[in-house]
C-alpha cells in the first residue's frame, strides 16, 4: 500500500489523520482555555470588575480553533465583536486579554479598547471589531498585502451570519474574487444576529450559497465538528496559498449565552438552547481524541485543569496590573514622534 492509499483508506476523522497528537492536544487545551476564559470574564463582569459589555462565544469553540489549526503567526485573521475564541485560538495570552478587560495598561490595547477591540499583532490577529462587517474589507486588504509583497501567508476573515447582510460583505467578497486574493471568509453562523434569525434576515438558505455570486467555492459544515471545520478550512487555505483565490466556509454553530450582557433571550426557546448544549463541541472533540487514542481520560482532565489554572493566573495578573494614567487619554491617537 502506498502512503497515498494508506491515507485514503484511513477513515478516521480528518483532524486525527492529519495532525500530530501534540497538535491535537494543544487544540483541545485552547478550546478549554476559550471556555474557561469566557466563564472567567463573565464571572468578573458579574462581580463588577469589568464594565461595558461582552459577547461570549461559549459553544462555538470548535469553529475558532479548527479554523486556526494551520495558521502560523505570519497568517492574519480579522475577528469580530465575538472574538475571544479567535484570539485564543490564534495564540494570544489570556493574562493580557484579561488585563484589557480590566482596562489595564498591560492589556493588549493598553486599556483603551476592551473586549470588543482586542488585537494581537504578534500572532497575526488584526483585531476584534465593534462594527458588524468591519473586518471584511480589512481582511481583503491584508490579503492584498501578502500578494503584492509576494508572501505566501493567508488571511482568515471571521464574521457572523448577521454580517453577511452588510454591504461591506458583498463588496469585500467581490474584490477578493476579482483580484484572486489569498483570503478565507469564515462565517460563523450561530443562527442569530442578536435576536434576528438568519433564516429571516438572509435571502439565501445557506450563507455559503452567496459564494456563487462571487465565483468562489462555498461550503457549509457542522461548525461543532472539529474535523469538519478543519478539513473545509484546510482546503480553502491550500487554495489561497496556491494563488487560486478566496473561498467561503460557513460553520453552523450556536452561542449558548445571550447576545451580550443585556439579552433577555426572548427570541429563542430554552429547549433550543438545551438541544445545542447537548452538542458541546469541546466534549465532542475530547471524546474523539480519546476514542482514537490521542489521550486518555486522565490526560484530558489534566488539560482541562491546566486551562483553569491558566485562567486563574491570567485574572491575577490583570488585577495586579496598573491602570493607564488618566493624563494619557490622548496617547495613541497619532504615532509618537
Amino acid at each position, binding site marked *: 500500500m502506498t502512503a497515498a492509499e494508506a491515507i485514503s483508506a484511513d477513515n478516521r476523522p480528518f483532524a486525527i489523520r492529519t495532525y500530530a497528537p501534540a497538535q491535537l492536544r494543544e487544540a483541545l487545551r485552547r478550546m478549554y482555555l476559550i471556555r474557561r476564559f469566557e466563564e472567567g470574564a463573565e464571572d468578573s463582569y458579574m462581580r463588577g470588575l469589568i*464594565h*461595558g*459589555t461582552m459577547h461570549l462565544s461559549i459553544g462555538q469553540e470548535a469553529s475558532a480553533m479548527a479554523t486556526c489549526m494551520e495558521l502560523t503567526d505570519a497568517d492574519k485573521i480579522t475577528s469580530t465583536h465575538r472574538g475571544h475564541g479567535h484570539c485564543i485560538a490564534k495564540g494570544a495570552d489570556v493574562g493580557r486579554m484579561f488585563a*484589557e478587560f480590566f*482596562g*489595564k495598561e498591560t492589556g493588549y*490595547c493598553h*486599556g*483603551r*479598547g*476592551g473586549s*470588543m*477591540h482586542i488585537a494581537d499583532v504578534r500572532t497575526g490577529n488584526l483585531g476584534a*471589531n*465593534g*462594527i*458588524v*462587517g*468591519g473586518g471584511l474589507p480589512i481582511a481583503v486588504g491584508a490579503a492584498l498585502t501578502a500578494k503584492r509583497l509576494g508572501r505566501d501567508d493567508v488571511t482568515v476573515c471571521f464574521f457572523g451570519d*448577521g*454580517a453577511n*447582510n*452588510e*454591504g461591506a460583505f458583498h463588496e469585500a467578497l467581490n474584490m477578493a474574487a476579482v483580484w484572486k486574493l489569498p483570503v478565507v471568509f469564515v462565517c460563523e453562523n450561530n443562527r442569530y*444576529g*442578536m*435576536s*434576528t434569525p438568519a433564516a*429571516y*434576515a*438572509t435571502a439565501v438558505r445557506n450563507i455559503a450559497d452567496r459564494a456563487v455570486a462571487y465565483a468562489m467555492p462555498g461550503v457549509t459544515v457542522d461548525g461543532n465538528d472539529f474535523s469538519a471545520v478543519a478539513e473545509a478550512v484546510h482546503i480553502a487555505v491550500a487554495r489561497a496559498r496556491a494563488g487560486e483565490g478566496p473561498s467561503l466556509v460557513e460553520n453552523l454553530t450556536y452561542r449558548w449565552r445571550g447576545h451580550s450582557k*443585556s*439579552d*433577555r433571550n*426572548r*427570541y429563542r426557546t430554552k429547549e433550543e438552547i438545551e438541544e445545542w448544549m447537548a452538542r458541546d463541541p469541546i466534549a465532542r472533540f475530547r471524546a474523539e481524541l480519546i476514542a482514537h487514542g490521542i489521550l486518555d481520560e486522565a490526560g484530558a482532565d489534566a488539560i482541562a485543569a491546566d486551562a483553569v489554572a491558566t485562567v486563574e493566573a491570567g485574572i491575577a495578573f490583570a488585577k495586579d496590573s496598573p*491602570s*493607564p494614567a*488618566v493624563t*494619557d*487619554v*490622548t496617547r495613541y*491617537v497619532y504615532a509618537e514622534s
Partner: protein
Amino acid sequence: MNAMSDAGLRVLSYSEAIREAMAIAMEADPTVILMGEDIGVYGGAFQVTLDLVDRFGKDRVMDTPISELGGAGVAVGAALTGLKPIYEFQFSDFAMLAMEQIVNQAAKLRYMLGGEASVPVVFRLPSGSGTGAAAQHSQSIEAWFGHVPGLKVLQPATPEDAKGMLLAALADPDPVMIFEHKLLYKMKGPVPEGSYHTPIGKALVRRAGTDVTIVAGSIMVHRALEAAEKLAAEGINAEVIDLRSIRPIDHETILASVRKTGRLMVVYEGVKAFGVGAEISAMVAESDAFDYLDAPILRLGAADAPVPYNPDLERAAVPQVDTIEAAARRLARREV
C-alpha cells in the same frame, strides 16, 4: 399606574416617553412605521421599542437585517413616497454606514428636485459615552449633521422633550435626526399626556442666571445644572441654556443671554474641535452680543481622542460636573 411628579404631573422615563410618542403617532397615523435592527421581540438594543411589536405587529414594527445603508435608504425611499418611517440605529455610531443615504439623499432630495419632493423620515440615534462600550459605540457625532443643509438635528435632554421632539419630528416634512443619550434612557421626569410638539429650533433657559451663560445639550444640560447649583453656593449665578436643537440653532435665546451675562461657555460631549461650540462661539462673535462679552468665550468638549474603554479615562475624556464647575468658575472670575 404612573408615578406622579411633585407638581402632580405624570412621571415617565426618557425611554418610556419616546415609546409613548411612537405609540401615539402609530395610533393616529397608519403611515407611521418603525424600522431598525432588533426592534421587534428584542425590544431594541436599549429596550426603547420594547413591546410595540406586540401592539402594532411585525408589519409596522419591522426588524431589518444588519444593513444600515440599506435600512436607512429604504426608510428614505418610503418617506419619499408616502410612509413616515422612524428608523432606529442601534448606536449613533452606525449612522456612519448610512451616511450616503442620510447626507447625499435624504438631506438633499427636496432641494435637488426644486422643492418637488419631501422626505419626512425620522432617524433615532442612541448616542454618547459612559457605558464602557469604547471607541465605536460611544461617539457623539451630532455636530457632523449640523453641517448638512436639509437635515434637522435634535438632542432631547428630558423625557418631556424626548416625547415632544419625536412627535414634532414626525409632523415635520423634512428629515429629522434625534440623538438620544444612552445614559438618559432611565432618567425620569414629568411628561404631559397625549400629543404635543416640542418646537424644533427653540432653545430653553433651564436655569436663569446673571453671571455666566452655559449653553449645553443632552446629558450636558444636567451636568451644567448640577455645576450651576454648586456655583450658586459661592455666589456665582449661572444661566443654563438647553440647546435642544443643533440645526436649526436658536441664535436669539443664546444672544439674549450673552447680552445679559457677558460671559459664554459651551459644553458638549462631541470632540471639542470643530464642534457645536465652534458654531455657537462664532455666531456670538459675529453678532452685536460680542460687544457685551467681558471675557473670552470658553468651549468644553471631549478630549481629542476616540472614547477610551478604561472607565477612568472614559470619564476624563468628556466634560463632567466638576470640570464644568471649575471652568465656569474660572470664567466668572475671568481667569481664562
